[in-house]
């Protein structure tokens, strides 16, 4: 801790609150991202099934998911806007110097997001009056816009990890910017595919997890079966794929960001025959306390042979690499992600086995317990993946080109701590309310399914879009009184 304290003393006082604030807002936003990127896709899958097979249960699920999407998207857009403001509020130094070099990715993202917002509005509000298939096809480009938006964001982030596409002039400012090179950086491909698959997988497991819980509580109707099977199948198919993509990105980091790799694997001295540590804590002197040590394995994983040389943290000056604490954080995040990923593969195989043998869901309650946990677990892996990539890059905001401390705002630490406090309070309230609203919607739907909605009329303003009406629907017009799933 003494080195950490020492480094903190050298850095501007506002660095810590700025970092904490960014970490907090990103960590919150990233929990919503899988649903922004992948929930439209999963909903459209269900929607398609409902239309093609004239299946009212599938249609009901799709409509309910789109009701959830409406709230989720609104909260996501808010937390996302805050992030783009924070680039300026917290890191004006980075934007001032590098904004033109790597900003185009954000430009692509901005436009993609624009299109997504338009299409999602049409999709969410088109259920009632648009023709069923027209409505479906207007929603189909949604997943593509999400992929495009992810392209822009990952282009910007991968540039921060492996910056290129410019030369520095005598005063250290970037000139001769090449846009193609700045977008397609070495880490772009691995990061992009790993990220996109992670988003679809996470959304799949979370949605399936909700119905797994219902299943465990004895609600074993077709509604729960379908609500579980479709998203879980998507996630289960992607899980093994993600394993290969994860392995690939780790190897790319080994080649292109050796110091980050060293932090993630707790490698202190550059050497061959490097052991692999499962967990454990890096000490200031380079030793590792605790954890499980497997001889040779790190070298084998990095280059397929024990003779592979792995660069260690000590190969660069202390202030050019993550501190022992940061390395430990990176390492733990990396190990948790890899562990959960491996366990999820077993779950996917279990599912595949039962499906292959009996064309049916596994019977075991333990399968559904694991499936319910998989939703939470995959959100944790998303957080861990993000921590690995961001903390592992320390102390650089632009790898080997700009330190986080050079990018930070000159605004005083007190202001930043105050804002941090306000933002945490507001976010806790907002995300808490978001969760409460989702749970309320679920309860209302369950009551509606049980036919006891009437008991729950409250207050004068009960005519809200979602959730069952307190009184039975009145036949006020030809379009008003339809059975769900019929002629929308």
């Amino acid at each position, binding site marked *: 801790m003494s080195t950490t304290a020492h480094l903190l003393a050298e850095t501007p006082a506002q660095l810590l609150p700025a970092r904490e604030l960014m970490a907090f807002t990103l960590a919150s936003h990233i929990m919503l991202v899988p649903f922004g990127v992948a929930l439209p896709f999963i909903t459209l899958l269900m929607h398609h099934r409902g239309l093609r097979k004239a299946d009212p249960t599938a249609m009901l699920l799709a409509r309910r998911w789109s009701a959830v999407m409406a709230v989720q998207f609104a909260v996501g857009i808010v937390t996302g806007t805050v992030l783009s403001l924070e680039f300026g509020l917290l890191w004006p130094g980075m934007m001032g110097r590098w904004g033109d070099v790597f900003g185009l990715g954000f430009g692509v993202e901005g436009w993609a997001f624009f299109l997504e917002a*338009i299409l999602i509005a049409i999709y969410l509000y088109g259920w009632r009056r648009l023709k069923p298939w027209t409505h479906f096809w207007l929603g189909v480009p949604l997943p593509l816009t999400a992929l495009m938006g992810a392209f822009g964001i990952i282009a910007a982030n991968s540039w921060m990890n492996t910056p290129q596409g410019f030369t520095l002039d005598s005063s250290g400012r970037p000139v001769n910017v090449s846009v193609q090179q700045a977008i397609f950086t070495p880490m772009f491909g691995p990061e992009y595919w790993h990220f996109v698959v992670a988003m679809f997988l996470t959304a799949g497991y979370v949605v399936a997890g909700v119905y797994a819980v219902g299943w465990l509580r004895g609600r074993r109707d077709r509604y729960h079966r379908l609500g579980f099977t479709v998203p879980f199948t998507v996630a289960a198919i992607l899980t093994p794929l993600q394993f290969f993509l994860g392995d690939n990105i780790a190897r790319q980091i080994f080649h292109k960001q050796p110091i980050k790799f060293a932090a993630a694997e707790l490698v202190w001295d550059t050497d061959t025959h490097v052991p692999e540590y499962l967990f454990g804590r890096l000490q200031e002197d380079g030793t590792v306390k605790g954890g499980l040590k497997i001889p040779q394995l790190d070298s084998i994983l990095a280059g397929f042979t024990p003779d592979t040389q792995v660069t260690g943290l000590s190969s660069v000056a202390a202030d050019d690499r993550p501190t022992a604490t940061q390395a430990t954080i990176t390492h733990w995040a990396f190990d948790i992600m890899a562990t959960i990923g491996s366990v999820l593969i077993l779950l996917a195989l279990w599912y595949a086995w039962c499906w292959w043998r009996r064309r049916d869901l596994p019977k075991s309650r333990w399968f559904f317990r694991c499936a319910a946990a998989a939703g939470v677990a995959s959100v944790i892996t998303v957080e861990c993946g993000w921590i690995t990539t961001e903390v592992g890059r320390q102390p650089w905001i632009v790898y080997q080109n700009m330190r986080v401390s050079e990018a930070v705002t000159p605004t005083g630490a007190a202001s930043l701590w105050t804002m941090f406090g306000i933002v945490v309070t507001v976010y806790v309230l907002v995300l808490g309310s978001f969760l409460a609203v989702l749970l309320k919607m679920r309860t209302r739907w369950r009551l509606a399914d049980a036919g006891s909605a009437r008991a729950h009329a409250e207050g004068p303003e009960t005519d809200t879009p979602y959730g069952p009406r307190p009184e039975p629907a009145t036949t006020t017009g030809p379009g008003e009184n339809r059975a769900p799933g019929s002629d929308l």
Partner: protein
Amino acid sequence: MTATVVAWILLLAVAAYACGGGVDYGAGFWDLLAGGAERGKRPRWLVDHAMAPVWEVNNVWLIFTLVVMWTGFPVFFQTVFTALWLPLALAAVGMVLRGAGFALRKPTRRLAARRIYGAVFAVSSLLTPFFLGTVIGGVASGRVSPGTTASADAWANTTSIMAGLITVAATAFLGAVFLTVDARRFEAHDLVGYFRLRARIAAAVLLALGVIGLVVTDPHASYVHHGLTHGAGLALVIAAVVALALSVWLVAGQAAGWARYSSVAVVALLVAAWGFAQRPYLVPTSLTVQQGAGADAPLQWMLVVAAVALVFIGPALVVLYRLDTHGVLEPLTDEDVAE
């Protein structure tokens, strides 16, 4: 040349956010003044229904403005976000509260919770445009220059405060005009007169604030003041006043639908007047468009990306607004999500 085009795109994006976002902020403003749960029930119902399908789209203009700012004019972005830290931070907090309040109020049923979300939404609908307005005023007042650190002086001055108030008045005006038209569209005839009156009041307040603003501009803002009272800037200001008068006249008659266009023209013309008055500076009088411009290649690519995006977004946006104004977009109701 490229930098100039990008600067105009930036101004266009600001204008689009001022108009699109402005309507939403204005709706929130009237939500705030609608009175208690019983008295304000009808206006709030209209605000909810009119805003719901489009408010997220309107919000994206801000993100786009920021992206153009940092890619096209990184030093300008750095300058504004360093010097005007506090109002921007407050606007950011306001945006979270506002978006969350609006999004969470809709699916909430309990009156107490709806009241809280509604109050949060409405109060931040007032404060957010005010702080964003002070930022514009702060830039225009010439107290900001590259290297200025955050200080109250940069935004707590006459010009900034006036700009903040004018922004709020403009959003209230836009909101009232749009809600008047929406009231007719949703056949809520009692609300047509309700919002028409408010549109007129807001127009009068906007005009008064504009005149006061021009008179009491503080000495630091002389460059922009000169631009607004001479040449193209003056012509645009006069055009905005004409559009304002036209809106007040239109909103009363049968062709009220056209008042939407004229009210948008008021705000767009005001933003354009500001842009013309400030030429050739991004920050008067210390940073010109040319000095602040980023590298050439990204700027050119940005035009390409914008052109390609326009091909996709233009039609989509037209479809959205057409569907919306033709009443095709309707929220899911309870029986849609009940078995």
